């Protein structure tokens, strides 16, 4: 099953490599990993999307908690949560495709950030599966370049991850 883990960790050099090293050393999957400092500059918040059985997830959580730089770990997928990912896509937009591109972008609530006479650069946010769906809606030939941030997540309502 797919899980979204949210971590608070000490904002110290090396903390990221400890987490990444743990996943590779123990053969756990990482689908995506994002990290940035929080409003408290001594802490970073990391979101990891991983896939594994319940037993594997239990071990991943325990092993992450064991890392001295990791302050807190929660599995967002255990409760209701919000997941968002940002994607930038540069597409070919010429002749009759130009109108079509704009239309598909609008359907997915994309924003066109940059325009040339041959291309559009579209910004899109949503869940991972929404971004995947956007790809499916496009003609592959038209995609020139893409970049995705990987998922970020937060609990709904009163579910708060804080020290």
């Amino acid at each position, binding site marked *: 099953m797919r899980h979204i883990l949210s971590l608070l960790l*000490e904002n110290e050099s090396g903390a990221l490599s400890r987490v990444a090293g743990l996943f590779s050393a123990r053969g756990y999957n990482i689908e995506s990993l994002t990290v940035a400092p929080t409003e408290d500059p001594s802490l970073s918040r990391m979101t990891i999307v991983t896939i594994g059985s319940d*037993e594997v997830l239990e*071990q991943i959580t325990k092993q992450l*908690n*064991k890392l*001295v730089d990791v*302050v807190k770990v929660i599995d967002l997928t255990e409760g209701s949560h919000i997941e968002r990912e940002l994607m930038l896509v540069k597409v070919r937009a010429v002749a009759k495709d130009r109108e079509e591109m704009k239309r598909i972008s609008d359907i997915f609530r994309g924003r066109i950030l940059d325009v040339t006479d041959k291309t559009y650069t579209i910004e899109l946010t949503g869940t991972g599966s929404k971004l995947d769906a956007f790809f499916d809606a496009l003609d592959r030939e038209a995609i020139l370049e893409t970049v995705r941030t990987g998922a970020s997540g937060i609990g709904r309502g009163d579910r708060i991850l804080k020290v």
Partner: protein
Amino acid sequence: MEMTGGQVAELSGAEIVSRCLAEEQVEFLFGYPGGAVLPIYDELFKQDKVKHILVRHEQAGVHAADAYARATGKVGVALVTSGPGVTNAISGIATAHLDSVPMVVLTGQVPTKAIGEDAFQEVDTVGITRPCVKHNILVKRAQDIAPAIKKAFHIAATGRPGPVVVDIPKDITLETTNYFYPKSVALRSYNLVTRGHSGQIRKAVELLLSAKRPMIYSGGGIIMGNASELLTQFVHALGYPCTNTLMGLGAFPATDPLFLGMLGMHGTYEANMAMQDCDVLLAIGARFDDRVIGNPEHFMSVNRKIIHVDVDPSSISKRVKVDIPIVGDVSEVLKSMLEHVAELSKGSGKSDVDAWWKQISVWREKDCSKFGVSDTVIKPQSVVKTFYELTKNEDVFVTSDVGQHQMWAAQYYKFDRPRRWINSGGLGTMGVGLPYAMGCQFAYPDALVACITGEASIQMCIQELSTAKQYNLPIKVITLNNRYLGMVRQWQEFFHGNRHSESYMDALPDFVKLAESYGHVGMRIENPSDVEGALKEAIALKDRLVFMDFITDQAENVYPMIPGGKGLSEMILDGSSD
């Protein structure tokens, strides 16, 4: 991180390092100098609180610090230079990591400005050690040295112990800064659970008392948690059978009638059968290693309830799903369990386990540790057995290397006390034996320290005979010389069509002359009738290192044996006839 307490003074980084070690009451610092740590060595020269031990190879220095920690329960400390000093230390660090040994390794680093420039003797120490430490810290400013060292000792010694590396660039050891040594440290990201959940503990004791075929399986965690006495009380209170892992030997007295011997790949028939057939298993301070339970599917194919006590939550339900997990320190949990036993066994009492003990005595009758005797060739088992008989009333520290000799030492030396059996279980590092003996002998200068080794393993840190001479360490080296990488040969016989691919030790040195050239006493023993005399003579040479080269049966194998992939009850027993 919060730090409190301490006096302020203006000192160089190097002096701070030496002051911190003194504050931690470090008795011995095992090390080897080099460019990046020269300022620290200069400070060590000026003080007399911490005694530096000059080894002959960094690996051995780390092993010696590791053994000092295992034998005393204190944190072992080593110091190495940057680059090659660090790479040489890796085997030692990884060995301590897999056996959860509290250790602080200080490593020199190139100056902060040179880091990342492929400077002379630069390696990414934090990167290269990360997978084999409990934690590591690259210190970047002189004022951070003392807090980093405090933090390192704290992390190394608490919870599930382990090695911590503190990497110190040369330039900050030359800078001066305000020094104060924190009295305590609190880390928001490092919180330990020690108490154990009281509801779970009660449930566990109820389950144990209701068992018809109970079994207590304990390991290295009992030794690390200094809980041997509590465990012994607990096992006696219940009257249940107890087994120990290789790392747990001595946690429960080997000569106690309730002891079934070691379990696992080379464990006893009775311990493995009882482990497989029990209906309630208490695993305490042990981690269901693959050398212990064999094939996990085979192990889990039987219906039994498992209680698992461990301070590290990740040890629980890692390889084997358990019914009652208890996260906590072995001492705390055992104390609480003992109270429950006293209370609960008053009422309905515990169920009758006589039939179970009858079954166990049937298994015991197999006498799986018998071995053939010979008048012409020395049986390796007999050397260990004789040594045990000669020394069983003394307080002896036995270290070992890795291979068949290690298993025979574990099987035939009966350890009644914790911290007396020092070996590498998790990493299985050949070469540890002699440095381990050094670490023990430094810690206990008057004790009898023996290293039971093989002719191959001993050569992996043989240079330490020189260190042993320098510090007059009267270690007794007992080499079971079978002219083979015996354990490798044994596996080749079982699993590779008896093809001895590169498992033969050709061109062996004359160990007697070798020992003598280092200034020690050497003995070569070839006849079974000389074994006892030689051992007695060596033991009597109280102030000399004696290197005993026992020329043993080349064909002997270690039994019982659970072949790889097989289950606990699928042991190969018969080896006594050859």
